[in-house]
């Protein structure tokens, strides 16, 4: 399997997760979206030396991964492209921040703590996003975005990008496979062929995208995806409220005596 095929398989696996018949998948997407946004906001708002509330905020990640039957390893693996960036963003803090802070009665280097908090914040954010996208389809996320009045042009762009990623990846896979089969023993694509192949890929992807758009247009698409209205159940209201309260409590009250 070449690297493009691997990416397509990963995308399909993610879509399989989104389509599971699991109670977390069946929750109203608006609640899941809101709680993800609130969580990310609370995590990023934690002060750079406040390690305790940050550790306690992991309860959301732990709960959603265990109860949601999501693989933590998969979550990390899927986000591997972003993770190095979020993990290394604070790598110079120990050298630049010479403050000393007290944690649980111990004196600790402020630079080390701030580096750690930055890393944890990045990790939580990425994992929380994974929880959302693994339990909510793109259609549902877009439905939730429209519900909170995000401009339709933005939502349509998100939806179309998602559709066209698939179209473009499939075209890239076809072109690359055809190339490999006629260039046995060659590692990768020869530099002289790159221009032609990329040109072909763009032209073919555009052609495919045009047909998809025509197909939408012929079925009455006028610039807004009209998705099935979702009913609100008790659990759809309870879930974000309970989590909102827990997270707010942790963020503002828990761990006060430790730091």
């Amino acid at each position, binding site marked *: 399997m070449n690297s493009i095929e691997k990416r397509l398989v990963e995308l399909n696996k993610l879509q399989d997760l989104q389509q599971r018949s699991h109670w977390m998948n069946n929750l109203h997407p608006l609640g899941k979206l809101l709680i993800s946004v609130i969580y990310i906001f609370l995590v990023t708002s934690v002060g750079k030396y406040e390690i305790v509330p940050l550790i306690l905020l992991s309860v959301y990640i732990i709960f959603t991964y265990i109860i949601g039957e999501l693989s933590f390893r998969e979550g990390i693996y899927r986000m591997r492209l972003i993770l190095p960036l979020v993990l290394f963003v604070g790598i110079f803090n120990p050298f630049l921040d010479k403050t000393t802070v007290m944690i649980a009665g111990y004196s600790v280097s402020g630079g080390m703590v701030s580096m750690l908090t930055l890393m944890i914040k990045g990790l939580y954010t990425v994992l929380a996003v994974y929880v959302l996208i693994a339990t909510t389809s793109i259609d549902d996320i877009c439905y939730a975005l429209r519900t909170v009045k995000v401009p339709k042009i933005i939502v349509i762009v998100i939806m179309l990008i998602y559709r066209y990623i698939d179209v473009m990846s499939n075209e890239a896979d076809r072109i690359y496979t055809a190339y490999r089969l006629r260039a046995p023993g060659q590692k990768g694509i020869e530099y002289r062929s790159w221009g032609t192949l990329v040109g072909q890929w763009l032209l073919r992807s555009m052609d495919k995208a045009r047909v998809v758009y025509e*197909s939408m247009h*012929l079925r009455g698409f006028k610039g807004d995806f009209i998705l099935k209205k979702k009913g609100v159940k008790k659990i759809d209201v309870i879930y974000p409220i309970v989590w909102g309260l827990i997270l707010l409590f942790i963020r503002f009250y828990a761990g006060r005596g430790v730091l």
Partner: protein
Amino acid sequence: MKTGVSGELLNISGLSFSYEKDSVVLKDISFTANYGESIGLVGANGIGKSTLMKLMVGLFLDYTGDITVVGHKMNKKNLDHIREHIGYVFQDSDSQLFLTTVEDDVAFGPRNYGLSEEEVEERVSEALRLVGIENLRDNKTYKLSGGEKKLASIATILSMKPDIIIMDEPSVALDPRNRRNLIQVLKGIGGLKIIASHDLDFVSKTCERTILLDEGTIVYDGRTEDVLGNSELLEAHGL
């Protein structure tokens, strides 16, 4: 069908079209098609079958001549109205199916036309029943087999209850069993069907009238058995 219309559903008169100056794709095409007819559109590669079909659904409007669909003249103003009457099944089912589940995709058209959720539900169930894939309702579109994708893409059009259905190479890439199944499905669909295909056997089993195109013009328009039984005629026009 949507409007309960009968009689003449499609009238094409003196239709000519070119993508570029000096290279005419279709020349002086004229024919009419009535409710209940099933018409095969045959011809060699590149003679303008797909272009003609795209003109019928209003994807190109810069042509000369007249196209009238269910009494409405094809123009920019009437386009939305015309598209409620006419459905187009693309050759590549992947282009037709762009939502996550079969149900969402089949419901896409009716929802865009502002039907209530009850009506949408009714239309989806009926369309899936007509093509015999009720069991695939909640399935993911990207996981369907080629034959299932074709049936699902036909269902996406049937849910809009069009008076006219246009299909581009519907039997392409289908195995014999799916092909036989599709023939039965098409026989069960009413209204006017126009099927472009190189699969002459498929055309003979689904269409009673056939239009043969060559070099952008209609060279024969008549009973399917007369066209397909005339091997000299077919040979002379690249088939």
